[in-house]
């Protein structure tokens, strides 16, 4: 296993959390807005924030397909609400693998988006086929319609994407790896050796008992459960980080079980 990956045994016990600053952060790190063609019209910043708070989330990452253009509006909408928003993107790589690219700030995401846009094919979105792609402000007001087709692969390999996101200070997480399409295991069969990732994301319906039988490789990885929300009701507060503050450095420590930081997941009952 590569030095940047960590074998996962069991979630470290919260009892070793002797740092009194550590608190519980229920988190959903995979949320779409109306900029994703497949998301419902209700996925606007103020409604996402209020729904997130009502289900008990303290941390959320906004991850539209191949774009981060609504991230700043989401950050603004959540300001002083008790919800922290990480700007992000759900990249579709050359291999059609979906990769969450999470950042602490908007500006590295903007740099990443610029690179991704350069590597997207020059195709226009067809709203009748895919749905509309709306850039909105913090109140949910329409600003403009994104014309480029975002529901497509950027010509970036998974490896290059992971390296570049890391270089920008971001956290790359392969998305919904239990799904039969657009996922690391379905498309590439196995985690490429040396890939600098520290966790994998599984979809909200994943159950370890069955999932580990279908894909035994999943046992070796910290697994984050997200809502992959395209509707408000998809938001989930099932992954809880025990961290000092809602930043990527703390999350990374929690994924590795370092210095009392850890995380746990409430898996769905059958």
């Amino acid at each position: 296993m590569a030095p940047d990956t960590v074998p996962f045994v069991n979630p470290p016990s919260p009892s070793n959390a002797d740092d009194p600053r550590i608190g519980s952060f229920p988190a959903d790190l995979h949320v779409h807005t109306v900029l994703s063609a497949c998301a419902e019209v209700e996925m606007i910043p103020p409604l996402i924030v209020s729904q997130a708070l009502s289900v008990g989330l303290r941390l959320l990452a906004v991850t539209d397909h191949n774009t981060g253009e609504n991230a700043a509006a989401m950050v603004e909408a959540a300001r002083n609400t008790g919800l922290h928003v990480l700007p992000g993107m759900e990249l579709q790589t050359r291999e059609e693998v979906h990769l969450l690219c999470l950042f602490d700030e908007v500006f590295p995401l903007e740099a990443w988006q610029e690179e991704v846009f350069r590597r997207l094919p020059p195709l226009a979105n067809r709203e009748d086929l895919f749905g509309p792609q709306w850039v909105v402000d913090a109140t949910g007001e329409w600003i403009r319609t994104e014309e480029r087709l975002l529901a497509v692969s950027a010509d970036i390999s998974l490896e290059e994407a992971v390296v570049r996101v890391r270089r920008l200070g971001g956290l790359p997480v392969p998305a919904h790896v239990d799904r039969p399409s657009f996922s690391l295991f379905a498309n590439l069969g196995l985690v490429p050796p040396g890939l600098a990732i520290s966790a994998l994301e599984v979809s909200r319906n994943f159950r370890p008992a069955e999932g580990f039988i279908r894909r035994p490789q999943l046992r070796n990885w910290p697994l984050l459960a997200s809502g992959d929300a395209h509707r408000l009701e998809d938001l989930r507060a099932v992954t809880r980080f025990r961290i000092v503050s809602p930043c990527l450095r703390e999350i990374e420590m929690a994924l590795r079980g370092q210095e009392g930081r850890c995380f746990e997941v409430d898996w769905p009952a059958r």
Partner: protein
Amino acid sequence: MITLKEIIEALNLELLTPGLGLNRGVTAGYASDLLSCVMAGAKKDNIWVTLQSHMNVVAVASLLSLSAVLITEGKRPDPEVVAKAEQEGIVLLATERNNYYAVSRLSGLGIQDEP
């Protein structure tokens, strides 16, 4: 059994791994771009047609002892992928044409699937 050399000549394929011998026979063909499907479906000594050029292509081909991988649509694997293939003894071939063309031409050479 048809050999890789005969296939390369018939389809005018580019050989990406010149260091490897081409006398190996091909029993049947398999086509898919989802490596999870290939792992479950391709058989030893098959030729695999795909547009994927990722390092894991070599891993899967090696795991299953495939004869060769035909990478389509003009995709070119990174040099590390080619080096790994040569090391693992997996012949990598390339064509500018697509999967459909490759499979239909292989079929024309009498190469069938192996259920």
